């Protein structure tokens, strides 16, 4: 299946065949990371702009490395210290950047739908690197790549996503992607952090951690997002950790081949104990490694294609 899209805005938009293609391409890209000279000339003369209105270390660095390994010129723009602080609108800033002829704009914004807005108004390709509590497609793709690599396949696997589902764009993108790839998804967390319409996305809901993780092939622990916690969703961090935190004691009741994932940044001792985060079951750093490969695949397919 050929990639024909100008943009990558959400996992909801793309089809299973396109996801499989992206993962295959990313898998081939991994070899470049093992080379002595980690650079191929593929995107020579192409420009990638990272337009980040929210803080990010992993995602921005990952896109930057991905672009540079493919020989694209990567420019980082962060909202703080920019014209955005002088009152320029989001779309005006984006149009100004487009006037400098980039090939791909990678955008992170606190407002859901920000990247979709740019995709509609800009001629260049737009990649969503996280928009509010909506989607984070490249994170879902790197998670799928990691699972496929470790398990050999995706279809039929049971995945449990634990924590703050309501505010999580990672969960939302993963649910769309995993459902399309034929996986069974269970979400678990306190009722205040599980969106009421969750079942409509085709997931099971559980309010008991032990029950939710007992048969899981993959457990994905989400970060408790302090910055989006303004409404008293949980009584206290300590209680959340006691009820919903994953420690070695709870891990004992899981499948022996379970994978523990976390999109980062990890709050050690809150949603996941250090012993679990560093255990043999944890693939948290593999996720980061695969992030670069996935973003190379995305940039290659968007910037290298005629549509761009």
């Amino acid at each position, binding site marked *: 299946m050929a*990639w024909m899209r100008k943009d990558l805005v959400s996992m909801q938009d793309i089809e299973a065949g396109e996801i499989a293609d992206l993962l295959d391409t990313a898998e081939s890209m*991994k070899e470049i990371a093992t080379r002595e*000279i980690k650079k*191929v*000339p593929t995107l020579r003369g192409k420009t990638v702009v990272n337009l980040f209105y929210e803080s990010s270390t992993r995602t921005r660095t990952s896109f930057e490395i991905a672009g540079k390994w493919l020989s694209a010129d990567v420019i980082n723009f962060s909202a703080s210290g920019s014209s955005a602080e002088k009152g320029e609108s989001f779309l005006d800033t984006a149009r100004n950047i487009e006037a400098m002829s980039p090939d791909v704009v990678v955008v992170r914004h606190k407002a859901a739908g920000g990247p979709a807005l740019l995709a509609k108004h800009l001629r260049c390709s737009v990649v969503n690197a996280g928009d509010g509590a909506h989607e984070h497609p490249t994170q879902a793709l790197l998670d799928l790549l990691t699972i496929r690599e470790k398990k050999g396949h995706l279809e039929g696997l049971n995945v449990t996503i634990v924590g703050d589902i309501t505010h999580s764009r990672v969960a939302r993108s993963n649910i769309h992607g995993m459902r399309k790839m034929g996986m069974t998804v269970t979400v678990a967390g306190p009722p205040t952090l599980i969106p009421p319409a969750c079942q409509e996305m085709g997931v099971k809901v559980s309010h008991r951690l032990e029950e939710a993780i007992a048969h899981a092939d993959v457990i994905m622990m989400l970060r408790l997002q302090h910055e989006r916690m303004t409404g008293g969703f949980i009584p206290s961090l300590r209680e959340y950790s006691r009820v919903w935190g994953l420690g070695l004691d709870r891990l004992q009741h899981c499948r022996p081949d379970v994978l523990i994932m976390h999109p980062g940044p990890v709050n050690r001792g809150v949603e996941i104990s250090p012993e679990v985060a560093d255990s043999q079951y944890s693939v948290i750093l593999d996720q980061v490694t695969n992030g670069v490969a996935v973003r190379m695949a995305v940039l290659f397919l968007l910037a*290298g*294609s005629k549509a761009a």
Partner: protein
Amino acid sequence: MSTREKAEVLDQAGLDRALTRIGHEIVEQAGGADLALVGIKTRGETLAARIAQKIASIEGKRPAVGALDITLYRDDLGTRAEQPQVRSTEIPFPLKGLTVVLVDDVLFTGRTIRAAMDALMDLGRPRVIRLAVLVDRGHRELPIRPDYVGKNLPTSRRETVAVMLTEHDGQDRVVIQEPEEGDPSLDGATTPTPRRTIKKGRA
């Protein structure tokens, strides 16, 4: 574009003889030591493995074999309607100091070989790079010349050369195809050919 078979160029025995001869020529010129064969995906990889087998039966030692995907080094990215699929490069040995024989099925414009040489140089510094092809069909666009050729085959640009190998296509043979009469496409070089048969279309 629909194509029809114009002529069979090599049958199974002919193809096998061509590879045997290439194997002998490589051994004669390069010797068996510090030798590696690197096939260009997909059919070049298969041919490289077969030639390595021939060399093993001549020399008693099988040379190292690797596979190269040149997609990331193509010069026509962004000019095609769809992106070619990226496959992985598998060269599990250091290239430094080796005599590397690049192996491909059909030599046409020479652009694939240009890309392959760039890719090899990024991976290491071979002592020598040589080129073995099953079919040389002419129409070079770059100053590139093969060292070992299975069959020289004068063709017109509108024809395509299809190399079929048992591993991919269920049979071993090489044929020339031409467009059906009345087909408006005149230039075989820019016309996509069906996936299961071959390109030579491509760079």
